[in-house]
């Protein structure tokens, strides 16, 4: 039952798509997909997510991990997708030195971001303003 939830997620992410799990019992949606619901323990099914949502919280990282030394400062946001899931991602399209311009509730859209972490290229979840 467990094979590939995470490898599927990253394969999809690399192709620019966001996937999650929906609980068959309580309807909760989670990212990345997993076999059992984190809320009620019910079984889940894998779902494709549109990736649009609103900022529920954000921060600007000034003291980054070693592998992101050259990328800081950068903005991280928790975004509530329309499908219900909360997702953390890098927030693009805003100036990290002007956090007052980032507003809670702002509409954003998912984007896959390719980034160098040391020697490795990684694909991570990012968001940018919906209007852009």
């Amino acid at each position, binding site marked *: 039952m467990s094979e590939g939830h995470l490898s599927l997620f990253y394969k999809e992410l690399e192709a620019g798509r966001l996937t999650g799990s929906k609980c068959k019992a309580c309807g909760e949606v*989670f990212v990345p997909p997993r076999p059992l619901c*984190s809320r009620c323990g019910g079984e889940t099914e894998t779902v494709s997510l549109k990736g649009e949502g609103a900022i*529920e*919280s954000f*921060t600007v*990282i000034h*003291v980054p991990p070693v592998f992101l030394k050259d990328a800081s400062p950068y903005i991280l946001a*928790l975004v509530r997708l329309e499908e219900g899931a*909360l997702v953390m991602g890098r927030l693009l399209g805003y100036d990290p030195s002007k956090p007052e311009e980032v507003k809670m509730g702002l509409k954003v859209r998912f984007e896959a971001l390719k980034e160098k972490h040391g020697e490795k290229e990684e694909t991570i979840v990012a968001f940018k303003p919906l209007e852009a």
Partner: protein
Amino acid sequence: MLAEGVYIVGAGMTAFSAKLHANKTGRELLVEATWEAVKSVDKGITLHKDVEALFIGYFTPEYYEHQSHIGPLAATWLGLTPKPAFRTEIACASSSAALFAGVTAVASGLYDVVLVAGVEKMTSLETERVTEALALASDDLSESKVGATFPGLYALLAQAYFRRYGATWEQLQRVPIKNHYNGSLNPKAHFQQTIGQMAEKVGKKLGVQYKDELDFLKNSPFNRVVAYPLRLFDCCPISDGAAVAVLASGRAARRFTDTPLRLLGVGLGTDNVALQDRADLTSLVATRNAAEAAYRTADISPKDLDVVEVHDCFTIAEWLAVEDLGLVGRGEAPRAYEEGLTGIEGEIPVNTDGGLKAKGHPVGATGIGMLNEVWHQLRGTAGRRQVKNKAETGLVHNVGGSGASAAVFIFGR
């Protein structure tokens, strides 16, 4: 319910510090803390003869000391070999897991006397490597990889809290101001200066005069942003340290002291590691569940507590803790801190030892370090920071990571 009563008959700890322990290894810090615990046992104890097992919390020895298998290694250095010994880990609550393992081992009837310990030797790595080691407590895939750091995760919680309750960063500064004051009364604290004293010193150097402590925190270049809106003084420091306690069954306790502490309540709680999987960003469900279990087993309510140690790895964490432990209502922390409710002279003294902010946070040692403070407050040996009326009941609250784990223990005289 526990089948057997469990008692604390001794406790000890090293100073928590970034400087004092430069030439010592984790195992040597453990010896130092244990030595003090031995001396604290009223009727004396002989480790090798009396102690039957050792449980020890150490979050990331792999990174700091290129070492694991800490249980038997510590046993050797404490003269405890061949007694059973293993390590426990739930991030920053690792020594609370050791305390839990010790409590259940005694309550199960298997042992009468066990040592529980915690240690973290952090200053062997540079700050950015420590940041990386700490990040192991968050979800590597959903958080670390995306660029989250621990200050960043708590900053996300702070922003959600501010938004929900209309609270401000300025209000939050009551936390470090109180905790540095308490730390100034604690000879084992990492920082033993009030923020006022620091402001004066920094002001002199820069030729500036700060109006008050908040003015310093707001306007000093020293208090730089780490993860917006959290600044340097919203974060606990990086410390070395170890802490130890001796547990005994009801049968055995009186062999060691006539005035043991009794474990009244115990609770562990868990939440999803990644913030994005949490049901609520303005509260730690793990704390609420752990507290509920601890209050239930102790059969007491928050208003019965005389002294409380909470996990303030970041300022916002202390606000969440006092609410999730039921010391104040949801959203009431800002007002409670303005009114001084949690000061040493307040109604519910919180973090009388300076908290993680001023006392320091050698991760694996923190839970049992808190127990040391309750040990002293309940026995009336807390010196200048002793709460007014000798405390009868104390609580320890220790969090792992950004709140995926929490442990709560309640002790009585």
